[in-house]
């Protein structure tokens, strides 16, 4: 399979081009905050409950809210049907994603409560952990949870000999490195980073740069989606 041909990737994108992204805010009735994202062929639904009473009581923290993050893939989301339930990969992704949010949310404002983040991957096409965390950030804002920033995640990688942004499934399967990154756009600080594959120092820096730029681009879309949801209501009912 030729992944790169004439300076274009297998899906026609440039090396530093993101897949098309669509964001919908507040799509669920029961959840306190929610966000549905389509990112390339990925379809991900994120929802937040909380702050709410923390059960079981003995897990309550007197100083701050307890944050949980559950990343889950629907059985039909992948080519080879996945058995329902958490697997080791989902558990690891849940952990690093929760850790990405822990210093961003003002947990100390809500002692003894729980803030629960749930993300369901409905259709997967590489980069799902980035889509999930990006959508979760929006859902947290939608729920009215105070945060220091709306964090965002994006990956870059190496395909054949090129460093490219936002790998699609074929590139992830046959590429030689994948680097997902989550940043706080306001401060530039990194809240999630993982890497697998092989990169030399130069390549790593290039991929890091590219992923960061991708993050900032997606962040503009996050803000736009959040504003648009409420501006729409304003339009219908009159704004001066």
């Amino acid at each position, binding site marked *: 399979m030729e992944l790169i041909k004439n300076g274009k990737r297998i899906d026609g994108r440039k090396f530093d081009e993101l897949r098309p992204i669509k964001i919908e805010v507040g799509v669920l009735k029961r959840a306190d905050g929610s966000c549905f994202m389509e990112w390339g062929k990925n379809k991900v639904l994120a929802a937040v409950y909380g702050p709410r009473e923390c059960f079981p009581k003995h897990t309550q923290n007197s100083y701050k809210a307890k944050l949980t993050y559950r990343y889950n893939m629907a059985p039909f989301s992948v080519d080879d049907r996945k058995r329902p339930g958490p697997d080791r990969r989902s558990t690891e992704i849940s952990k690093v994603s929760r850790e990405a949010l822990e210093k961003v949310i003002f947990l100390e404002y809500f002692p*003894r*409560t729980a803030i629960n983040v749930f993300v369901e991957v409905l259709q997967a096409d590489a980069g799902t952990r980035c889509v999930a965390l990006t959508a979760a950030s929006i859902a947290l*804002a939608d*729920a009215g949870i105070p*945060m*220091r920033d709306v964090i965002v995640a994006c990956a870059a990688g190496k395909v054949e000999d090129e460093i490219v942004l936002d790998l699609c499934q074929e590139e992830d399967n046959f590429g030689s490195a994948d680097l997902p990154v989550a940043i706080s*756009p306001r401060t530039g600080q990194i809240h999630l980073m993982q890497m697998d594959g092989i990169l030399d120092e130069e390549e790593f820096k290039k991929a890091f740069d590219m992923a960061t730029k991708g993050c900032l681009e997606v962040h503009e879309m996050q803000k736009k989606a959040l504003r648009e949801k*409420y501006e729409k209501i304003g339009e219908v009912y*009159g704004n*001066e």
Partner: protein
Amino acid sequence: MKEIVVPGDKVDGKVESYVFREGNNAYSMVLGVMDKKEGYDKIVPLNGKYFPQVEDYVIGVVTDVKRGGYVLDINSPYDAFLASRRRYDSGAVIFAKVGDVSEVRSVSLTMDKQLYDGELMEIMAVKVPRVIGKKNSMVMLITEKTKTDIYVGRNGRIWLKGGDIEKAKRAVLKIEMEAHTDGLTDRITEFLK
């Protein structure tokens, strides 16, 4: 045009609520509307649970009877305690004031008054100020036009009794839905005709 802010957006240093400071700058903590009024700016959150503040009037429901008082559900992640000599049964609807909130968010209520019969509804706590209006103007408008007795709790609970109660409830829901827009008072007046 009202401005929507998201967490992390830089705002004017004079804003006091729902902001955090880093260095010389102030940033919004929440997704909210920037309300520029009479020379001062305010952030009004667009969503969020109720967090008890001292001096708030709330509507609670008795869930447990303890020594010397009652535990009330106040539609918040935190329960409230009411020390009272009056006799209340489980399920009693009480209008009370938040007297104290401890560091671990234990809430004490005072000045309790039971609300009998009537209907209880819940809206988003952040929308309550709009239902009350400046100097109670909005809630008084609804009461005047529907003849319904209304108690509004800062915790998002509203108790209504008598009059055209269905119309009053619909007016409240309309305010909740359109809370962050302009021209609301006129539209509600029109609606209540």
